[in-house]
């Protein structure tokens, strides 16, 4: 049986800088993985390749047997919309929309059934404890609240793959524990595959599988 995600001899460079060198990696459905490494080691680039935000220079990135490099821009956008949820370090909420508007944005972009997504999002909001914040504007929310809205947006379409880039990087330890706990809980219920890039040893220790990257290569 093929793994959910398979990376074969993936290389990525920006100009003369080689960020990833020959990455091989298999990830099964429902796995929860922490990617660790020093700054500039290539861990975020690896995450973005998995989320089809970037294309590799060489090698194959296969998700469900499909090589992302073979897809056109429109197919990749559709893939990002319906199959991937992103939680970024910087919350990336649009200041011109309320929290609720931000949460429904992926559904509107993908032309999904907004009413169904609204129902799911309201349930998730209650779980995340942000029901009272939905009509607020991003600048009215604290860092932790913004990150929870960000998680809610990422999970609103229940994507099979959830990618998080330093999701607790900007949070204090209390909020960090809360966010990590919620993430784990929600993906466990939804059977989503969770891949988290983190510097934080404490966060990484809660994951069953840990990958360490150094100089663009997986060392363990």
């Amino acid at each position, binding site marked *: 049986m093929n793994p959910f995600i398979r990376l074969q001899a993936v290389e990525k460079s920006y100009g003369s800088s080689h960020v990833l060198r020959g990455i091989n990696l298999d990830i099964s459905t429902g796995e929860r993985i922490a990617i660790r490494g020093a700054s500039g080691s290539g861990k975020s*680039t690896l995450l*973005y390749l998995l989320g089809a*935000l*970037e294309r590799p220079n060489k090698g194959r990135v296969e998700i469900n047997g499909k090589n992302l490099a073979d897809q056109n*821009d*429109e197919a990749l*956008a*559709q*893939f*990002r*919309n*319906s199959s991937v949820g*992103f939680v*970024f370090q*910087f919350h*990336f909420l*649009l*200041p*011109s*929309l309320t929290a609720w*508007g931000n949460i429904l*944005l*992926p559904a*509107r*972009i*993908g*032309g*999904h059934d*907004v009413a169904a997504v609204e129902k799911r999002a309201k349930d998730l909001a209650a779980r995340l404890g942000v029901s009272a914040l939905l009509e607020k504007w991003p600048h009215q929310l604290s860092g932790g609240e913004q990150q929870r809205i960000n998680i809610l947006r990422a999970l609103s379409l229940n994507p099979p793959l959830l990618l998080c880039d330093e999701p607790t990087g900007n949070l204090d330890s209390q909020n960090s524990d809360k966010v990590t706990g919620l993430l784990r809980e929600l993906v466990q219920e939804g059977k989503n595959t969770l891949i988290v890039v983190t510097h934080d040893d404490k966060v990484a220790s809660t994951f069953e599988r840990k990958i360490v990257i150094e100089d663009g290569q997986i060392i363990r």
Partner: protein
Amino acid sequence: MPERKSSLILALARVFFDQASTWRLLLFTILGYAFSLAVILCTLGLMDGFSSTLKEGLRLSSGDAILTNQNGFFKINNATLEEMQIYGVKAIAPVVQTEAFILHDGKSQGVLVKGVENEEMSRVTGMDFQLSEGEVIVGETLANDWRIKNADYISLVLASGKEGDLPQFMPLTVKHTISHGIHEKDSRLVYVGLDHLRATLGIENKMNVALLSFGTTQVNVAEVQERVDNLREILGRPWILKPAWQEFSGLLEAVEIEKTSIAIVLQVIVLVAIFNVAAFLITLQTRKTREFFLLNALGMPRKRFFTFACSVLFTLWLMSCGFAYLFVKFFNYLLMNASWLQVPGDVYVLTKLQVLLQFSDYLFVFGCALLWMVILGGFAINKMQRTSLLSGLRQEFQ
């Protein structure tokens, strides 16, 4: 599905036009662009209006073409008449034309007197002539300058055709005034009955000018010129046949050449306006790049975003064209009605100017504006297209 699309468009509109300052900038960009387009249109329209009004005015005094003869006074025989009819002449107005002095209220001035037949002259020029013996129609400018009213008495003093004879004296009653819309005609022309003038000058059944009409409802320069050329060839000497606008042909030609060169020069104004559009695009791009990359990351294909951007630009262009059209109409209204915009007729030949634009003029000006917009929009879109999603996100959010 259309409901979903419209909800996305609404969300996009809300994302990209969330600030009042963006709307204000958009509005002023549209108005600035529209004003520039209106300036070009008005300039072209004034030139077209000048040519058209001049030709129409000349038609009112001279029909489509003027026939004279090298020998001076002439008669048109049946054979010539038939030839003219074959070549499209629908009506001929015999005219005796001579110079004279007009006397009124102790003043005198040189005028051009036209002796005309009511029916034929009306048919050729489209104006209403109902002169009886002893009556005169006076050009409007002349009447205004001299304060001549209907039923006033004036006198014309005409030179005698014979050596040693005294000048001929014609006492006349003013029937009404007449306007050709051309300053020179309105200040110099007077009309009297043909038979009365012939009798005064002692000319029997002859004319020195024949005005021809080809029966067209509007002045069609190319068509009239072609017919005149053909007929001139057939008639040969001693006939002299010219289009009615011949006396102003140099002026009309100059206007036509100026129109092209000014249209090109005025593109500079569009260029200045396009800088405003560029400023709008740059501002929007600077403010909204993060939104663009985030929406792209969340699954909106770039193609759809660019379609949205193109729609915004197209709307901007369309609204600019709409406002430019309104500005032109408003300027034309002022030109026709506001006294402070009346031009001095002795300088501009015409007593009144108007903006006259054809569909091709709008097409040219609006088309050029669209071309500029496409170039500018293409440049901005291409710049964003070249930035990778990841570097865009990092650049904008970190």
